[in-house]
């Protein structure tokens, strides 16, 4: 946990500097259409203002479950690997990186802090637009009871400001 947060939690103290963090890409997944299993990738191509090449929410060729509700800020989605581990531990449900249906699985990135902020993923720059919310649709696809476990920690939706190639292992850092 960043030390500044600890300071801020002490009565009478002032937050002197912004919390810092530094993380990485652990998994990348896309799928072509609604319902289809997510396919692992070693790298993905982020296109500024549109989405991920080959993914169902690429603007202009949308074939996602929610594509009827267009959303500019859903060009790329992220999910914490720490949440996968917590759900598996606390709910006794094996929950894997290919199952949360977001594109980028992260480690060391406090996604819930980042709404409205810009950050780098490898060479790309994104802006977080809103927290993702879970949908029971995922239980239908997985045949696993994970909806309740995902509430309030279901990942992050982002707009792509600067595109490029993102690879597994790339650094994720504040702008």
């Amino acid at each position, binding site marked *: 946990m960043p030390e500044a947060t600890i300071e801020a939690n002490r009565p009478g103290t002032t937050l002197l500097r912004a919390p810092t963090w530094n993380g990485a890409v652990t998994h990348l997944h896309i*799928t*072509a*259409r*609604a*319902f*289809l*299993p997510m*396919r692992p990738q070693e790298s993905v191509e982020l296109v500024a203002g549109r989405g991920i090449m080959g993914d169902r929410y690429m603007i202009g060729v949308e*074939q*996602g*479950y*929610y*594509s*009827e*509700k267009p959303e500019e800020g859903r060009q790329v989605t992220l999910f914490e690997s720490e949440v996968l581990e917590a759900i598996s531990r606390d709910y006794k449900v094996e929950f894997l990186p290919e199952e949360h249906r977001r594109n980028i699985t992260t480690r060391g990135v406090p996604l819930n802090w980042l709404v409205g902020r810009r950050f780098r993923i490898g060479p790309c720059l994104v802006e977080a637009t809103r927290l993702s919310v879970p949908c*029971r649709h995922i239980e*239908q*696809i997985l*045949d696993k009871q994970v909806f309740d476990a995902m509430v309030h920690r279901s990942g992050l939706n982002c707009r792509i400001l600067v595109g490029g190639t993102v690879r597994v292992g790339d650094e994720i850092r504040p702008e």
Partner: protein
Amino acid sequence: MPQHITLVVRRAIPDGPGTRRLVLQDPDGWPLPRWKPGAHLDIHVPGIGHRAYSMCGDTARADTWEIAVKRETTSRGGSAWVHDVLNEGDVVAASMPRCTFPIADGAARHVMVAGGIGVTPFLAMAHEFERRRAEWALHVLSRGEPPCATALAGCAQTGRIRVYDTTKMARPSWDALLDGGPAPGLHSYCCGPQAMLDGFEEATGNWPAGTTSIEHFVPPTLPAAEGAKAYTLCRSTTRGEMEVEPGGSMLAALWELGAKVDASCEGGICGACEVRWLEGEPIHRDRVLTPERRRTHLLACVAQCSSERLVVET
């Protein structure tokens, strides 16, 4: 909104009298969602609606689904469309597979009895039983050549399938078909026309609870909804409300309230209209939900209500 699965008909194979087996894949060959033996698929028939067909392929094939459809003389339009309109290369819209006829995992032996096109779910189970090295037998009763003869021939090397042409031989007794059961560890399954299901239910009437399974082609007569009363149906997401009379359709009321709820059989056997309920006392009349599942879900096509208010999560 693509809240369906887009499939292309890769092959349409004649497979037995009046039977067409469809090999379905994603248009770009992506893997398809996982499914379980005993599952069925709703296919959207243009201008008609959804029609449910048992999946008869092998769950181990990640990129391919199969269904087999017999042309029904009393077709409501679905089988005629599959036989007369659908061609290889055509694109169809399908639901997620739903398994309302699962393998009994705890059983040591499995005996399946199929009538005609009722063989389809058992073809998928046969692959799974072989992988598990389970003890199983499949009896197929048909008038003449059975449906899916090619697919059955593909499992012939197992030596566990018997086909009875009832135009040439006497129909075997239920006792013979059911391996003399009930017996410890034995589970029996039946899928076929209603007369066969009635016979199966009578023959297995003394079997322990949970050791038999039935797959219906068409919805059976609904049980009475004792205690049903008029109620206020409420959607949790919109807070929209509507009064529903005793015997009235919860599904129709949900549609009128703007809820997007799928439907297929509308008789409580396919599970397409399953919704989660949050408050109230639903009366379940479906044939597919387990007691545990009923504590949280209902099938809107047949459910009634015994409380003044029912809140569903839509």
